[in-house]
């Protein structure tokens, strides 16, 4: 809970409204075939269907749930080319209130460091209690932006969250790690990254889609942010995955025979058991 200019302390119970930022990225659909450009400079974008990063959908859904329960406002922020506006509109159609689209060709090839600083430059100018990001984007799979954004804003971070509880002055979350689950608490404002399991994202309703068209989206270029845009990590070359040698289909008349042959090959040839 942050101070509200509207109400005095005695009414504190009523000022649990929460300012939420949901960061979203437009990415190729999970079913997309990815083809590497012949010169290794990236991927062919021609045939790709673009969607909101699935982990960001969990972030947007959680933002909407927090707003519905506590009151407040959800602002969607995205760094991306012109087409990323579709993803911002999708979030608005789900129920977010307004958007900021950071759109500038200088961000083509931006790494997480640049993106996080661009997001931070915008978020600094907005009221923010909880900032939600997907735990990673399923295109570059880097999973860095949430933490880097937290550092840029000087805020605590809770990554890979599957449950979030907002108490008014803190958030308590569940974070699964290898072989255990952690319950962690931090103060506001903070950055939370969403993992699958956090919630079940809603679909945009038809009235939601109509309303989204009229919701405000502020478009900003790099100059408006005043940040350095040189990537620290660069993908020098994009390559297809290593080819696997053709496999063997195990022959045999009976399941038992096939199982025995498979076991033998795994032991003797693959040395996998």
């Amino acid at each position: 809970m942050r101070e509200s200019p509207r109400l005095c302390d005695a009414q504190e119970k009523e000022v649990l409204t929460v300012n939420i930022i949901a960061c979203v990225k437009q990415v190729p659909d999970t079913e997309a075939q990815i083809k590497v450009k012949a010169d290794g400079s990236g991927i062919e974008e021609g045939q790709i269907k673009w969607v909101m990063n699935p982990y960001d959908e969990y972030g947007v859904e959680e933002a909407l749930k927090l707003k519905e329960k506590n009151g407040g406002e959800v602002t969607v922020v995205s760094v991306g080319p012109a087409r990323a506006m579709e993803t911002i509109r999708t979030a608005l159609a789900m129920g977010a209130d307004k958007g900021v689209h950071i759109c500038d060709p200088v961000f083509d090839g931006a790494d997480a460091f640049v993106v996080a600083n661009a997001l931070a430059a915008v978020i600094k100018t907005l009221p923010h209690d909880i900032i939600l990001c997907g735990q990673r984007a399923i295109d570059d799979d880097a999973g860095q932006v949430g933490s880097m954004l937290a550092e840029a804003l000087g805020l605590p971070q809770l990554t890979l969250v599957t449950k979030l509880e907002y108490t008014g002055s803190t958030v308590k979350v569940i974070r699964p790690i290898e072989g255990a689950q952690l319950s962690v608490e931090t103060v506001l404002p903070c950055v939370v990254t969403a993992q699958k399991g956090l919630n079940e994202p809603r679909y945009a309703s038809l009235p939601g889609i109509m309303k989204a068209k009229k919701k405000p989206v502020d478009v900003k270029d790099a100059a408006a942010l005043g940040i350095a845009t040189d990537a620290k990590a660069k993908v020098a070359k994009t390559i297809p995955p290593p080819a696997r040698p053709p496999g063997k289909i195990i022959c045999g008349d009976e399941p038992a025979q096939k199982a025995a042959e498979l076991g033998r090959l795994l032991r003797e040839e693959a040395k996998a058991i």
Partner: protein
Amino acid sequence: MAKGVMIVAEQRDGALRKISLELASTARKLADQSGDEVSAILLGSGIEGLAVELGKYGVDKVFVGDNAALEPYVTEAHAEVVAKIVKENDPSILLLGASVQGKDLSSRVAAKLATGLATDCTDVKIDGGKLVATRPMYAGKCYGEVVVAANPQMASLRPNVFPAAENAKAGAVVKVDVAIDAASIKSKVLEVQKDTSGKVDLTEATVIVSGGRGMKGPEGFAILDELADVLKGTVGASRAAVDAGWKAQKDQVGQTGKVVSPNLYIACGISGAIQHLAGMSSSKCIVAINKDAEAPIFTKADYGVVDDLFKVIPELTAVCKKLVA
């Protein structure tokens, strides 16, 4: 001038995690190319004794930060201490594990040091004096060769991919003054709930037996549990099986689940949707068992069995039981 290779070791409950040894061995290989030193950062409480172990795997010098405030792991405290040690020692390369903790820490540290980071790498090499880190993107549908245009050049390494080989070095302990301003640490671990199943997490398992829609229901997974038990493996699931509620979300392998690289991946009744294939195709040996000979999973498999999995798997379990006995 930046010099040497530094790793951030990871320990839990007073024991080094396997990824720490993988990091040490990989760092040793890189450093030997230029005759450089390997150093390690080891943080926690009551953990100084673990430095010897790192020495066995090729670490020359271990910076030990031993302080109650560093246990259990909290991002802000660890990131602060790691960044300070890195700044004072100026390594050219900084490697972490792409474990849950390593991913959380590496990106925070990279931002603090204003440098670049290649996440979840499956190969690292030195080319023209610079680190080139190869990493899957789009969950392995393609790969990127990443270079970092600042120092230290940071990369996190995917667990289970890099070999851990003994190569004894000094492992000399350098105690680091850890001055943490408690007021600056905003997050607090309230509870650690350990998984009591005794199963290794999918991302660290050497054997995974995975089931899909072909398992027909949650009870179908019992035969996979038996096979996994014999092979000391972990059971995973496709998105279809998880979305149907047959298995928990933490068990999902694929682009929107866990990306895994075990030694042996046995896909049972999984057709092989592209988003699943993306999550497991870096496995070393892939077996597919499916009655549909046209299933796309067979295009990735080293060994395929076209048959009824409910007949094949119990037989395979029996065969494996004899082989591992």
